[in-house]
């Protein structure tokens, strides 16, 4: 049994529910015979991968949907063995080099080059080139991106790259200039509603508008999340009434608990408890930025309005530090220490923009 989100995933460009202009463009690109390198970017759950797969199907036909996974082991210059999972069909290959962290350059150099140097062997293939999809391209290190540059040009007869990223800001401009940038924006509310209704119809359900609205509010433009929440809601209350509160994810509940803790009491002891909570989230693979964002979001609802600007300021400050530093917990902890200090200050002295210095 499959989850609805996977069951009703569109497989052809014509099945897509929104961004129809984009679909048209992709279709004409695929049929032109001069398919460019692409950099597909947009927020999580907007439909990037779905569109990429649809485009590939347009390029090669249904054969691309026959996926298999390969695990490749290769050795880094420092003799460390690394496993890289490669998802591939006969016509394309999909890599996630950021899985191996700082060794992503080696993956790009080794695997990508190896693929690029061989030609398409299947004579029946519609296209002469193979497609390489690079997932999480914005997580690639600078070295890896530099390694990509030349490969893209040199072997363009054999391969086309489709890179998938959340934002283009972390991708170096030489790469950006070699790609066709394709932005997949998050769906608008009416577009999401269309998809939800479509799924409801297929499942022979009626989705009340209020429930749909609360689902979309919760999903915040993330189509994947919306469909998952929809199915969860269906499990919670089979009649899909909107009266029931949508259950939050385990980690979201945990984050708002930490936010409560921060607001409740500001003391070193409590900060230590917050630290334990942060460790719990971090060790269970919740990305630190997500933690900071979610807790801050929950906090903002609980504090005095006049404090909100300064909280957002500090959140941004420490988020940047997290990106620059190694040990995320240090910056998260510094953020919460700062927040507690700000809150305590506010409770005692009222609003005071200056930092009190000794």
């Amino acid at each position: 049994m499959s989850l609805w989100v996977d069951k009703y995933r569109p497989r052809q460009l014509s099945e897509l529910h929104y961004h129809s202009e984009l679909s048209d463009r992709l279709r004409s690109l695929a049929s032109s015979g001069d398919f460019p390198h692409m950099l597909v970017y947009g927020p999580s759950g907007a439909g990037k991968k779905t569109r990429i797969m649809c485009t590939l199907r347009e390029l090669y036909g249904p054969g691309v949907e026959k996926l298999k996974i390969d695990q490749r082991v290769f050795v880094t210059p420092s003799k460390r063995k690394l496993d890289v999972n490669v998802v591939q069909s006969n016509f394309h290959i999909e890599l996630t080099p950021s899985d191996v962290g700082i060794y992503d350059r080696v993956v790009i150099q080794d695997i990508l080059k190896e693929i690029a140097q061989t030609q398409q062997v299947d004579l029946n293939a519609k296209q002469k080139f193979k497609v390489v999809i690079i997932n999480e391209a914005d997580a690639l290190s600078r070295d890896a991106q530099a390694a990509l540059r030349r490969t893209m040009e040199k072997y363009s007869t054999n391969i086309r790259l489709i890179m998938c990223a959340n934002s283009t800001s972390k991708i170096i401009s030489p790469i950006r200039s070699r790609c066709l940038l394709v932005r997949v924006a998050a769906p608008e509310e009416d577009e999401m509603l269309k998809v939800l209704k479509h799924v409801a119809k297929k499942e022979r359900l009626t989705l009340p508008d209020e429930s749909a609205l609360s689902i979309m509010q919760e999903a915040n433009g993330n189509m994947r999340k919306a469909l998952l929440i929809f199915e969860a809601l269906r499990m919670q209350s089979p009649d899909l009434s909107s009266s029931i509160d949508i259950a939050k994810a385990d980690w979201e509940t945990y984050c708002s608990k930490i936010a409560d803790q921060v607001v409740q009491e500001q003391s070193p002891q409590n900060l230590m408890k917050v630290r334990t909570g942060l460790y719990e989230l971090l060790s269970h693979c919740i990305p630190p930025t997500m933690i900071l964002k979610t807790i801050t979001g929950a906090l903002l609802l609980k504090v005095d309005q006049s404090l909100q600007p300064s909280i957002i300021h500090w959140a941004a400050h420490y988020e940047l530090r997290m990106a620059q530093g190694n040990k995320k917990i240090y910056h998260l902890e510094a953020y919460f220490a700062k927040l507690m200090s700000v809150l305590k200050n506010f409770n005692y002295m009222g609003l005071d923009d200056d930092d009190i210095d000794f």
Partner: protein
Amino acid sequence: MYEDVPTPAVKSTPKKSEASPQKKKPVEKDTEKPAAKKRGPSKDERAAEIASLFKCAAARRKKEGVEELDKPPGLPNCLAGLTFVFTGELNSMSREESTEVVKRLGGKVTTSVSGNTTYVVAGEGAGPSKLKKIEELGIRQVSEAEFYDLIRYRPSGGKLTEKQKEAQEKAEKQMKEEAKRMEKEEQATEKAQARKAVVAGREGIAAKRGPALSSQLWTTKYAPKTLKEICGNKGLVEKLGTWLEAWPANYKANWKKPGKDGSGSFAAVLISGPPGIGKTTSAHLVAKLKGYSPIELNASDARSKKLIQNATNVDNASLDGWFAGGGLTKDSAAGLEINSRSCLIMDEVDGMSGGDRGGVGAMNILIKKTRIPIILICNDASTPKMKPLNGTTWPMKFRRPSNTEMRARLMTIAFKEGLKLEASALDTLIESSQSDLRQVLNMLSTWRLSKQAMSFEDGKSLGKESQKYTIMTPFNIVPALIGPYAFSKTSRQTLNDKLDLYFQDFSFVPLFIQENYLKNAPARIPKGDDPESQMKRLECFSKAADAISDGDLIDRMIHGQEQHWSLLPAHGFSSTIRPAYWIYGGSSAAGYNPVSFPAFLGQNSKRQKLARLLGDIQIKMRLKVSGSRDEVRQDYMPLLASKIVLPLTRKDEAADAPESIIPYLDEYYLNKEDWDAFVELGVGEMKGETISSRIPAATKAAFTRAYNKVDHPVAFHRGELLFAGKKGTAPRPDFDEAFDEQEAPAGDEDDADAETPDPNADLGKDKLIKMPKPKRASKATPAASKAPVKRKKKD
């Protein structure tokens, strides 16, 4: 970046202390009169010395505008017989300095208040529990100024009570007697040697005389000759003796009679303890006293496996030759004779390494076969290298002898050698050498070569010179950095000293600081729970946390691609010293608060492990799911948990749960291990342990059984695993049997099916996938469930 860390005031000029005793009222006026107001000729020198001792604090205090107190030098031994306890922070002296002053003047300092305490010197922020106890015990509490007056007006030698005097005299008498006895013994040995030489000379043999006693090292000269003379560890030495005595009997009993203390089942003992406390000496002495002739092998002898087996020759049959040959054909080990009354002493066993490879293992073999007692000696029995000896030897842990034990013996020796030794000087020596008797003795004998007396200062400087270099662990570095007086006005540590502490272990100290800084109550904020100090305290912590965060950014530059190792001092300041500066102080919680080990390390490896598990789950799901790792964790897992985990926790659904869960698992190619990982990845209400405790054991077992009963699709095989399986030695007979039925030649129909949107229909038609079906033979279960399902996935 660091401008608000103060530079310690060390360059200020010393303020010379000019005592003006007349102006101050003596604290003990009612009972004592100021005895000596005059100063001897050497007083000026002394005063300068003391003044220099105080100068650092004075400079600080001057800066802070605290009224300067005169610091009197005091007369020698004027605090004799008094016991002090310091509590709180004094204005002019750090804790170490005040302790030193008292010790120099012959007094005693203890850390806790007891009935023996004479005075409690209370400074700023004295501990309430101490003050309470003082009241209970009726002990006199004095201020800092009164403490100085006490020093100023007490006569030389102090005023001892009758009892104390008596005790002192008695000790002195005992010491003199002992020294006399030693003298006599020495003469006797010398005479005996001379006599021997004469006899030998008559027989025409060249006299083999040992070196004259006067030219021997003190450590040899005063090595204990009777059990009574051994310092400390008396009980263990006695036990060693009884063990040696019982050895032949135990040998005959084939080590079957453990005896009262269990020593009867061991053919060897393992003595461990720090250096210089008499392990080797005790072993030799006891062996000799029990009639054994000790054979010593130490680190200077090669002790490889082969050599131990051959050279010691202890269990060799040729030992019989010795009995038969009446001593003519001698067996030897390291050039020594072996007979049934030999005793092998293996010194410095933990030094067996490198070239002595396999030494410890060979020792064990030797111990099993030995016919003579073996005494092994090492410094640390807990090292992994010593592990093989754990079960085969009787452990004996020698402790450092107590100060009193050592003092008595050393004073006697000093007296005999004509060295005038102050008790306080000896104490500092013992302390600085960490109760290493041998080292103290060597230091004294060197000193005696040029001088006849040793004062407290002499002892202190000598002790400092020959101080052993010890590597500090983070567990004692952290208290030194964030302890109550680390940055206080009387602290003597410069920033460089603190940086040295960081460099003791620069990768671990920052982690420890980060783990422990929140437990402090910053000393810079007054105690109290009013909102203002709470607020200020939080600001301190926030600043400390910011500094740690800065430190991490620097760490990134050091350990990142740039490798700017020259930034290490900056990292030290930012990650360690600056946070410590903000939050130094006592512990915020009452009671004993040990330094905790950084949780970061454990949490980080946990994160890595879970990330790996999540990666495994994600890549398997990848065939059906487009999301990345994070998206799977954040969006899929909550819903999927309610489909595949939660049904097991509900009583009413538990019975049907496996049937509803397994299709989902199969759809996403997840196996039982992935399910476990899935459960482990939850947080909060979905936390692994919480969920596991909510699933009844019976339900879980039923689920596992149901899962194992049928075969499941596999997304892919790990290259290595497959390889390892092929390498496996034992052929699995059930393997083929379990497969023959379903195995059909790979057809093209699976290609055609791939496009069918409904995966269930797909599964049904695909002959390569085994549909859930009950097992026939139970014996086939393990093989079949383990065996990879040969599913050629769409290629």
